[in-house]
């Protein structure tokens, strides 16, 4: 028979006593970034979807199936696995937000699918994601760490997922956006990309706090672990990218984007970039697609694409400025 533990000293979260300002800061950023896929008029992409060749549609569908899987892992295992080792109650609360938002991301791909594909095609895409060896290996490598007993290695794996592993997938909608195709889908993906940046920054920051307190031996172990894991994941991403993009001849371009983002994952963890400049020369069209309002004037309400919620005006009034 189980007994109920005495309810004494069970803590309640007090947001009026925040010990790490970054917790409150990130909570505010995440909640003010909140969005739902229903706000993006995806159905306007149907006509441009029909202009894609069969190979192009297959690649795109598989990309989204793979991204769905990563978001599912991050929501139901990754973010949750970080909670027991949270340094503050506010950190735990931030992880609940991250976990929920990853579920929103995962559901967004289903919105894209239901807009563009038949039920059978959707089922095929999910079947592919369960059968693709490189995608499954990627999941296994990450999950082994999430289920492992080292809290710092969990954070490293989580930051890699947030800041690096998504990008073999994110390339595709940015590629289409640069060709003025699937622009509403690209808008939705940009919202996801923005969220993942905050997640990677935050989890990486919490990793750095723990690493800073560790002994020099432990610091060396964590650094070694990080670069070994990155290499293992990178080799797998290489192969996964070939699976997806070889039929379209885009693989080398995608790999530039992968290396660029893997450098950013390392930086989020407080380490130096690994890949040199020439190995991370992202196609300018892809970088421009990340930043749509610079060269597009589409209006959100007309549904013709571009940046919903993202700030456009550079100069606005702010109560902090006195001049």
């Amino acid at each position, binding site marked *: 028979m189980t007994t109920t533990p005495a309810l004494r000293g069970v803590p309640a979260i007090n947001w009026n006593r925040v010990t*790490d*300002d*970054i917790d409150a*800061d990130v909570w505010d*950023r995440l909640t*003010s*970034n909140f969005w739902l896929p229903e706000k993006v008029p995806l159905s306007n992409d149907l006509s441009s979807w029909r202009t894609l060749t069969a190979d192009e549609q297959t690649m795109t569908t598989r990309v989204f199936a793979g991204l769905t899987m990563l978001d599912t892992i991050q929501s139901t295992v990754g973010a949750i696995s970080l909670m027991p080792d949270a340094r503050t109650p506010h950190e735990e609360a931030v992880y609940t937000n991250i976990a929920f938002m990853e579920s929103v991301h995962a559901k967004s791909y289903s919105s894209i699918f239901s807009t563009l594909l038949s039920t059978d095609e959707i089922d095929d895409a999910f079947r592919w994601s369960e059968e693709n060896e490189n995608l499954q290996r990627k999941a296994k490598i990450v999950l082994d760490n999430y289920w492992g007993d080292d809290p710092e290695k969990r954070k490293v794996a989580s930051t890699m997922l947030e800041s690096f592993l998504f990008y073999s997938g994110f390339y595709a909608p940015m590629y289409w956006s640069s060709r003025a195709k699937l622009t509403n889908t690209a808008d939705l993906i*940009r919202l996801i*990309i*923005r969220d*993942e*940046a*905050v997640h990677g*920054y935050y989890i990486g*920051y919490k990793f*750095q706090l723990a690493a800073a307190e560790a002994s020099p031996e432990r610091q060396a172990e964590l650094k070694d672990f990080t670069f070994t894991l990155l290499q293992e994941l990178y080799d797998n991403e290489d192969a996964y990218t070939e699976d997806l993009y070889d039929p379209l001849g885009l693989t080398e371009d995608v790999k530039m984007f992968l290396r660029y983002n893997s*450098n*950013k994952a390392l*930086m*989020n963890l*407080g380490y*130096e*970039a690994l890949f040199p*400049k020439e190995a991370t020369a992202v196609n300018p069209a892809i*970088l421009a697609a*990340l*930043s*749509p*309002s*610079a060269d597009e004037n589409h209006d959100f309400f007309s549904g013709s694409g571009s*940046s919903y*919620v*993202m*700030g*456009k*005006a*550079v*100069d*606005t009034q*702010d109560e*902090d*400025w*006195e*001049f």
Partner: protein
Amino acid sequence: MKLVYFSAASENTHRFVLKLQTNGTRVDAIRLPMGRNAPAPLITDPYILLVPTYGCGNPRTAVPRPVARFLNIEANRALLRGVISSGNTNFGSSYCMAGRMIADKCAVPHLDSFELLGTQEDVSRIRERLLTA
């Protein structure tokens, strides 16, 4: 030229500044206080401001509050010669927005920008810029 910079508890910008100091060069750098209500220092020499971009694309919060408070002091603004900013391209058109906003508001050049912790190339380029400015 002197450098004035802001870095939050994550220390990302602070570490960039530390990297500027290696290789035997010495960049004279002043860090702005972090606290939300800490008083802003008064600067007496011309300087370049290094600022990370906050706010995830929201212009209202793009410039860290202590930086805005520091620039609200007219004497500090008068000595500002240029801005260098950092950011993350994930935030799209808001990338390095803090630098652009300050450059616009204070009518000084937005001299340079880099992502996150900055690469080796970013460090050498910006060190050179500061030493020759």
